[in-house]
């Protein structure tokens, strides 16, 4: 209908902007990754054959994986607590999970540095009470990176879990224990399977987002914790090595894209069954 058709014009500015200033640049990146120094896949071969790059890829997957597992371990009891607590506690928990999420990543990283560094608060206190003589290395290592990343990514785990758990009727659990299952069995056989959709969604989200993380590992990690995003930045910023940086970016893009498609497929499958 003519009246409805006119709305299509409203799309033009947004689509034009994203097309010219986003889609085009990303394809330009893709093109550079296969056309320099000569046309071919040499940049990708370099990434997948040299041990330093493979090491960074491994770091990326390992850190994202560890973040995901930690988020699940922390997120599960927290989400459970949110569902089963009084209103004001639930509000406090939601607030606590969301505030870091809406705070600048710089502010958060800076806060961790203040607390964890060699001259930081924890070391000050520990030396002050005489528990240690030498300051501990709490930051610029894997521990610091994970501490920072879990803090930011926790909401992506907690909220899917929360929405699933809120819909689980307590009576299932009671029925199971009533039928003779001990609480641990009831948990594994009844509660956990019911939470699984939320857990899977949360884990996928955390993992995908963690793969592309840059600021937190750069500020809180050491040389051994370089992730792919940081490598891309350094390749461009310090060496102007566009072909390799582009190829790395495309590897990251394809990796996240594939994972995203998998999530979608899983969801469609589930939706189809329900």
């Amino acid at each position, binding site marked *: 209908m003519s009246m409805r058709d006119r709305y299509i014009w409203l*799309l033009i500015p947004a689509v034009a902007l994203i097309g010219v200033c*986003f889609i085009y640049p990303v394809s*330009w990146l893709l093109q*550079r990754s296969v056309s320099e120094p000569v046309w071919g896949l040499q940049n990708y071969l370099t990434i997948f054959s040299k041990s330093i790059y493979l090491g960074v890829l491994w770091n990326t997957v390992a850190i994202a994986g560890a973040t995901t597992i930690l988020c699940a371990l922390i997120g599960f009891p927290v989400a459970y607590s949110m569902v089963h607590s009084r209103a004001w506690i639930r509000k406090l928990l939601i607030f606590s999970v969301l505030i870091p999420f809406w705070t600048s990543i710089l502010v958060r990283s*800076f806060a961790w540095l203040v607390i964890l560094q060699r001259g930081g608060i924890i070391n000050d206190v520990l030396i002050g009470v005489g528990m240690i003589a030498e300051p501990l290395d709490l930051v610029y290592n894997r521990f610091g990176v994970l501490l920072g990343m879990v803090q930011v990514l926790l909401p992506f785990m907690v909220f899917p879990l929360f929405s699933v758990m809120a819909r689980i009727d307590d009576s299932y659990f009671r029925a199971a224990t009533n039928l003779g299952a001990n609480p641990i069995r009831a948990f594994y056989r009844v509660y956990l399977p019911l939470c699984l959709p939320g857990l899977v969604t949360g884990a996928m989200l955390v993992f995908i987002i963690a793969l592309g993380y840059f600021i937190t590992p750069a500020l809180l990690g050491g040389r051994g914790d370089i992730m792919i995003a940081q490598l891309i930045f350094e390749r461009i910023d310090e060496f102007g090595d566009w072909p390799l940086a582009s190829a790395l970016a495309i590897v990251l893009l394809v990796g*996240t894209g594939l994972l995203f498609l998998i999530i979608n497929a899983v969801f469609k499958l589930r939706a189809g069954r329900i």
Partner: protein
Amino acid sequence: MFFSAKFWGGLRGIINSLLVIYMLAPLVIVLVISFSSALFLSFPPPGLSLQWYDKMFSNPTWTRTLITSVQILVPAAILATVLGTAAALALSRMESRWALFIRGVLMAPLIIPVIITAAAIFGVFRIWGLYGTLYGLIIAHVILTLPYVMSTVSANLAVFDRRLEDAAANCGAPPWATFRRITLPLISPSVMSGMLFAMVISFDELVVSLFLSTPKIRPVTVQMWSNIRGDTDPTIAAIATMLFLFSLLALLIDGIARRRSGRAPGF
């Protein structure tokens, strides 16, 4: 039974407290340190003073970068809000498969890792002469914040009763009057909240700004980044506190607006 209810209640209390400490304590510490009277980072501070805020506002590096940040976030948030709302409106009226595709394309900057967006935009903007300019930074921030506005407004439009527009037309309202009197007032809470978040995201943005800025045109986050990597002096705590309070304020305004619109008509 297994363990007593008291045990589980206690365990839950401990978990809740640990979580609140883990999530909030670092921010609270930064907040407190920013008011410290000490000359270096120490906690708890020996006394309170505003010396670090004073230092921040008297140091041209910080004031200049703060102004640059505002010069970026205001136009970027307005543009993202206008374009995002327009796109959400158009998409809510399309039924073809194209609508899904276009929505996906417009949401892409939110989904794909920022580092890719940053590298790609940097590469192309250097060629186009937008690197190191305010315009370049504004455009980049519009691209990053538009998906937020669009998804917030779209969520609102999904529950918006389209027959209200039919009813208005039937009452004699031409399309523009219908939009101004019916559609816009009913979706405005989500438009406002989209704009607030666009502002917060633009203010906090670092990765793309890192690529696009030069020492001359530099948002405050980039300045913080280079200072944090050097040393952590309490001036940064003051700036961090400001950034944090800005986010908190936005969340608060949004919360109040939501509550009010919950009581007022429409939702």
